[in-house]
């Protein structure tokens, strides 16, 4: 376990509320980045970010993971899935009202409007961000858990409920797709990274 996380958790468990602030600050960026990128900039991202923390603290006595951040990601993963199910039900309902609407599967596969997509920027980060948002959700999740949270594949497999080989294969597909994006951008901008 991260030594700092461990220390803050122990202090928090001993009743020190300030330690909770440190823990929030330490995990804020990777957790929010994961949620926001999984939600493709959807306004619900902020709500899930807040809810993840509430669930984490309410269930802190159940915390058994090696890394606190992995545990937060697991909670966020469950909340994102719940929210996607609710949205899917709502979409089905809306679809039933409109005869010529797009099929549900296509609409779910399509990323939500992203400001970065609208800007015709040659910036490498924006290109990669767009490419990440276009990955299938399960590949995107593996990629984000690795890059944002440094979550090991063994833990990713547990979060997704798949074998470690499946988690690895998803990451491989994601990296191959992003590599082609990176190469295309490198050629276009002349940046060699």
């Amino acid at each position, binding site marked *: 376990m991260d030594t700092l996380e461990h220390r803050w958790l122990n202090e*928090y*468990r*001993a*009743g020190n*509320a300030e330690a*909770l602030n440190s823990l*929030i600050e330490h995990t*804020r*960026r990777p957790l*929010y*980045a994961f949620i*926001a*990128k999984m939600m493709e900039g959807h306004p619900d991202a*902020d709500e899930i*970010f*807040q809810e993840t*923390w*509430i669930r984490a*603290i*309410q269930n*802190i*006595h159940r915390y058994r993971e090696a890394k606190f951040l992995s545990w937060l990601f697991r909670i966020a993963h469950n909340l994102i899935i719940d929210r996607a199910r609710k949205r899917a039900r709502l979409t089905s309902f809306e679809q039933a009202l409109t005869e010529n609407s797009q099929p549900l599967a296509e609409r779910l596969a399509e990323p939500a409007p992203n400001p970065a997509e609208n800007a015709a920027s040659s910036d*490498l*980060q*924006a290109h*990669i*961000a767009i490419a*990440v948002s276009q990955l299938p959700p399960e590949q995107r999740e593996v*990629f*984000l858990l*690795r*890059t*944002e949270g*440094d*979550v*090991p*594949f*063994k833990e990713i497999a547990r979060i997704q409920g798949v074998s470690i*080989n499946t988690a*690895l294969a998803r*990451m*491989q597909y994601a*990296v191959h797709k*992003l*590599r082609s994006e*990176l190469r295309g951008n490198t050629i276009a901008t002349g940046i060699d*990274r």
Partner: protein
Amino acid sequence: MNTNKIEQWILLRQSGELSPRKCRQLDILLARHPELQQFENDLAAISLVSRESTTTADVPQLNGATRARLFEATEQAPATLRFAQWKFLAPLAAAALLILGISLALHRTPTPGAPIAHTDAAAPAAEYAWDDNLEYELDNLQAVLANLNADLPQANRQTPDEDTLIRELLELEGARI
């Protein structure tokens, strides 16, 4: 070994899940296959670029309502954790009870006329090793008491009350010193 497997090793090395032996094998393979070395470099570059696309400044703070709920939970946390903390004390409490039980068993005085419990002859001897020792200690204690009784004046040998016995024992101790 196929390319697919080597790429998986590269991914596992990046996550710190590849054994040192396989890491060494991977280095040898990468030196022979530049295209795989390129995969590793690209993986590192993509991860870095993606991570840097979200800065701390882009991340919202927890809102007031969430913070209030979190700190409300913090106040309740010690109560909810009380049992968890208790669990760590359980082995200590069990050990203390065991020691107390043993002490009581060692210091109990045999009741006159009480039947002597016999151990099951068919049971393995090892199980009764501790009891054998206890029996030995009790025998010693009884012998000491018998000797004391023999040393006491004839008139006091029969059913002395507790105060008398204590006084006589103290006298005996004092005499020996």
